[in-house]
């Protein structure tokens, strides 16, 4: 097995991307887009005179003065630096180095991992089998459609884009362009240029989705008779999954970002991942959580503490229980409640709230909590959801109880809808609109209000116009995805008087839980990203051996499973001709017959076509033991062949050779030693008889 990490990814919206070589098959796991990179584009046609003076430094620019030149490069970014063009999209660079036609299988773990797939399926040579869960396929398709619709709307401002090589990249190569912008465009090593692509079309999405085989959780699909592939819930979001792959050479589990206790999606199914030979752990979200960045490495005390609890032979169940403790999920609920209370406060003060988060699970919970809290505070503030797919997405989420957490499944049993938004939509407290210019929006619009609007990058979609409308209003509130404000995200909207709330929601397993997790899962080999390994000491984990992998390097993993099994139908086995051995009574041996197939990930020997043919003239082809000349002479005599023994030790030969001369019925010779016997005869029949005599003395098959 070989693993190549094509991209480590970056948080929830940009999951990692891996290429796996297993049993001779190439498996691509996830095909995401780095959507944070579109922040280099200017959101709307930028008016050059617009407040530009605020950003320019007072130092007059002089290209001939080296000191000033340096200053120029490090000057503050201004909105004018952003690219005024139809956005292109950044795909996984390393994926372009792989021939698309040589990929056999694509596994998509969550809707975010699907966003880049149409780029791959556009390739005429692409013929891989694509697997993802039904919910991922549906939600992912809607997100792609929404992206295309927002993009098309954007294009209305700019007119049609450049056709082939975009001019904007040429412009960015000049020295005046700030380094931070260049880094996004060209990458750390400066060769990211080829990863920028023009967005796909709705037709591309459709033809991509036609190639998808959607599966249920825990449904077994068999690829090529060889690999049994199973999606198990990861808890990250609705439909998100981890993968279990069973093949003739052992079992492997791929763990994407997982959440142990979820309040929307079906929780992390770790039981299903237990005990495989190899675990690929790809979740890097643990490095982004606040407590790690603040304290640097996890303190060794804490670390040892966790390990010692494991060493003290805690029962499996106890360990599993500690994984499922609800601390994290309570913290998540608190975050959501805080967002709601901030929005309510703003509304009370007459300010509107813009929520640009598009994680479906978070949005669904916020809608529910927000409406409930507005109702309990008896605040008459409308909630708007503006997105081309809002209506379909929200209707869909109330028809998929199988994909949700237990509490929501319980609601099905008691006859309530899975998510509370249904009732509020009916009561006209939540309003859904496909776009900001929807005809009915004007009539129901009322401020202050609370708006859920994509896109989280603040470059596309209704969020852009709403942000421009409210950015000067100190009573209004902007709820952002964490980390966005530090980058280019808010640049085109500055100065901002709005209150800003940045939220980082849990999007994986916490670092401290890793030792426990690995103890519960009990893999023989665990592959983790080097960056994770640097942060936590797993060396003392005795149960498994830990291997590191790094971006764009291929890691070979030796086979650790026993030799593969072959299953022989009892029918066929009963037709084998069994040999009893003279000197080994405990053994029975038989030559195989039939046809060897690959079925359900197993080698199987079944009745073939050539049965009678081979059984007719079965003759041992391999022998062992030794031939005593005297016994051979006796055996030959019984067949009516007479001969005499001549012992001879040849000059340089240390081995004992015996020769039996045969005179009657025909001339012949048998030369025998420790390692072998040669039959020398002119006559075919005599030779065959001698062979039979020898075969009678030796064991063979």
């Amino acid at each position: 097995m070989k693993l190549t990490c094509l991209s480590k990814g970056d948080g929830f919206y940009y999951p990692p991307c891996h290429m796996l070589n297993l049993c001779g098959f190439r498996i691509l796991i996830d095909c995401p887009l780095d959507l944070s990179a579109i922040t280099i584009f200017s959101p709307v046609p930028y008016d050059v005179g617009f407040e530009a003076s605020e950003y320019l430094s007072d130092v007059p620019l002089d290209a001939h003065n080296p000191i000033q030149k340096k200053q120029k490069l490090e000057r503050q970014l201004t909105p004018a630096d952003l690219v005024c063009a139809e956005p292109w999209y950044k795909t996984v660079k390393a994926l372009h180095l792989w021939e698309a036609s040589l990929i056999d299988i694509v596994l998509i773990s969550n809707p975010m991992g699907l966003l880049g797939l149409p780029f791959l399926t556009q390739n005429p040579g692409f013929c891989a089998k694509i697997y993802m869960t039904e919910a991922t396929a549906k939600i992912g398709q809607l997100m792609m459609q929404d992206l295309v619709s927002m993009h098309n709307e954007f294009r209305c401002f700019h007119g049609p884009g450049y056709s082939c090589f975009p001019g904007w990249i040429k412009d960015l190569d000049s020295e005046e362009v700030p380094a931070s912008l260049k880094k996004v465009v060209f990458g750390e090593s400066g060769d990211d240029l080829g990863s920028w692509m023009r967005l796909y079309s709705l037709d591309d999405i459709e033809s991509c989705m036609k190639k998808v085989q959607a599966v249920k959780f825990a449904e077994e699909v068999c690829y090529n008779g060889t690999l049994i592939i199973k999606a198990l819930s990861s808890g990250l979001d609705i439909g998100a999954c981890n993968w279990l792959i069973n093949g003739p050479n052992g079992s492997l589990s791929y763990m994407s970002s997982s959440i142990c206790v979820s309040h929307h999606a079906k929780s992390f199914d770790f039981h299903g991942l237990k005990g495989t030979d190899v675990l690929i752990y790809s979740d890097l979200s643990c490095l982004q959580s606040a407590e790690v960045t603040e304290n640097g490495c996890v303190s060794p005390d804490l670390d040892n503490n966790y390990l010692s609890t494991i060493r003290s032979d805690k029962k499996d169940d106890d360990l599993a229980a500690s994984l499922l403790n609800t601390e994290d999920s309570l913290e998540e609920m608190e975050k959501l409640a805080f967002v709601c209370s901030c929005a309510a406060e703003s509304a009370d003060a007459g300010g509107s709230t813009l929520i640009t988060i598009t994680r479906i699970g978070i949005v669904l919970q916020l809608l529910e909590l927000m409406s409930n809290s507005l109702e309990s505070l008896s605040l008459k503030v409308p909630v708007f959801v503006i997105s081309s797919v809002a209506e379909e997405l929200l209707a869909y989420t109330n028809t998929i109880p199988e994909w949700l957490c237990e509490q929501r499944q319980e609601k099905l049993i008691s006859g309530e809808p899975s998510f509370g938004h249904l009732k509020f939509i009916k009561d006209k407290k939540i309003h859904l609109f496909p776009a900001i210019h929807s005809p009915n929006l004007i009539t129901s619009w009322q401020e202050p209000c609370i708006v859920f609007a994509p896109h989280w990058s603040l470059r596309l979609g209704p969020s852009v116009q709403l942000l421009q409308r409210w950015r000067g209003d100190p009573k209004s509130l902007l709820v952002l995805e964490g980390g966005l404000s530090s980058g280019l995200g808010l640049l085109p909207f500055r100065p901002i008087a709005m209150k800003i709330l940045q939220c980082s929601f849990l999007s994986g397993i916490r670092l401290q839980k890793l030792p426990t997790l690995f103890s519960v899962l009990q893999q023989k080999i665990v592959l983790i990203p080097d960056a994770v390994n640097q942060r936590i000491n797993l060396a003392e984990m005795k149960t498994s051996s830990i291997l590191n992998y790094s971006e764009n390097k291929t890691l070979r993993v030796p086979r650790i499973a026993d030799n593969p099994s072959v299953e022989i139908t009892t029918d066929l086995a009963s037709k084998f001709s069994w040999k009893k051995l003279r000197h080994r009574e405990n053994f029975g041996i038989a030559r195989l017959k039939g046809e060897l197939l690959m079925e359900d990930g197993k080698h199987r020997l079944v009745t073939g076509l050539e049965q009678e043919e081979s059984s007719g003239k079965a003759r041992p082809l391999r022998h062992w033991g030794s031939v005593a000349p005297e016994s051979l002479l006796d055996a030959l005599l019984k067949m009516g062949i007479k001969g005499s023994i001549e012992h001879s030790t040849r000059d340089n030969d240390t081995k004992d050779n015996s020769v039996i001369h045969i005179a009657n019925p025909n001339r012949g010779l048998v030369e025998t030693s420790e390692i072998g016997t040669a039959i020398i005869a002119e006559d075919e029949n005599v030779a065959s008889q001698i062979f039979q005599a020898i075969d009678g003395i030796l064991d063979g098959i």
Partner: protein
Amino acid sequence: MGYNCVCRNSHMDHVGALPYFTEVCGYNGPIYMSYPTKALSPLMLEDYRRVMVDRRGEEELFTTTHIANCMKKVIAIDLKQTIQVDEDLQIRAYYAGHVLGAVMVYAKVGDAAIVYTGDYNMTTDRHLGAAKIDRLQLDLLISESTYATTIRGSKYPREREFLQAVHKCVAGGGKALIPSFALGRAQELCMLLDDYWERMNIKVPIYFSSGLTIQANMYYKMLISWTSQNVKEKHNTHNPFDFKNVKDFDRSLIHAPGPCVLFATPGMLCAGFSLEVFKHWAPSPLNLVALPGYSVAGTVGHKLMAGKPTTVDLYNGTKVDVRCKIHQVAFSPHTDAKGIMDLTKFLSPKNVVLVHGEKPSMMTLKEKITSELDIPCFVPANGETVSVASTTFVKAKASDMFLKSCSSPNFKFSNSSQLRVTDQRTADGVLVIEKSKKAKIVHQDEVSEVLHEKNHVVCLAYCCPVKAKGESDNDVDLIKQLSTKISEIMSGAQIHEAENSLQVGSFKGAVCLKEKCMHRTEIISCSEAVFLCCNWSVADLELGWEIINVMKLNL
């Protein structure tokens, strides 16, 4: 194997006794149900419990609390989800049609695999899809066979008949009563009516008798992924279970003037509210009773279908005059004979067992399966045990060398009577079984090692005279000459030539210059002829002699 229970659909014949089983008998093993079944069966069980108590005044078998506790033990499963119940048992559910949430169950115990169909439906109906299953390798298929000999034609004419009968009744100012169980038929017929009402712009109210069926409609809406493709596709714009013309019925409306349509539970007019309404509506010739599907003998529904009675005895001895029209709605979501044959043919199991039907028609179907599909078929009586042979495998660890040799084809050409190509890959493998150890498969070259023995190579050798000694002897020419001869006679033989030797398979021959050679049997001396010293392995015994004979001809 422990006790495992899988409930396939929420018809009373399947889950009716479940609370009794778990709460009163104390069954403690796992219980699996599809999501819709888990959601709907509490409603059905409660309905059933009430009917039993009402009708017979019997002491209840189980209570409402029993139902609730029982349902807590149920594990909900999705279609195709593979569940490892314990080390040996694996189960998986497949879509069965029939009613919302009905599934066929695939179970694998060790190497043996069976499918139990439960009730299923091989054709798409208005709200549910047709049964859908993978092509599985099965030892046994256990099929439901309620309509074993019926072959049902298209159901559209019957749908039209039903709609026209109801329309005629309400147009004449009558009331139409449709006694029905809460699930399945009610939704199907209601969908037909709702749609027809829209198209014909009819304003007559359609009622559902209790909250029960309305609630069931809500479940249908949530569980839309379990309905037919047709329904699913419409769902983006309008959920077809959002009935536009349907309202809740109130007891006071029984005697209200004017036409209406009423769906009332339970079906078959066996007890409860539907029977009560029947008592009031049956005497009027304007009214209609439409009976969907099958009625059990002894119920009022059965009596109405059996003949055209003018009076009917109710269970408590009261008689009712029947002057209303009776319409039997014939379609029912059970599979027919053709469906059973189609499924059996598709799955091609090693054995078939038919259950859940009437004996004579099951025997006819058994005959058909045996003769047309050539599959052994059984119709066991209640309590009878059928045993069929199941698939088992011998498992052996295979060596890398064997698997490697198997990964490249090893064709053997033989032209005994006609050219035959056989793949000899597996024949290089040897199964080795050592007492009290796991079986192994090794390559033939590894056998002696496994047995801790030393290889002993048996070969044949012969120093063959191939040409009379002449003036200008050239080894290269000689080898060429022999090679040509060999290939003339043995077409297809792969001959490798060297300066003074040649090789075919394991057969090796080299010009022998020795004055006296051990491998020479003739008395002909080296001065009279040129010799080729040959040896070959036992595997190529015949091949070797053939070559020797060809070469001797050269002499």
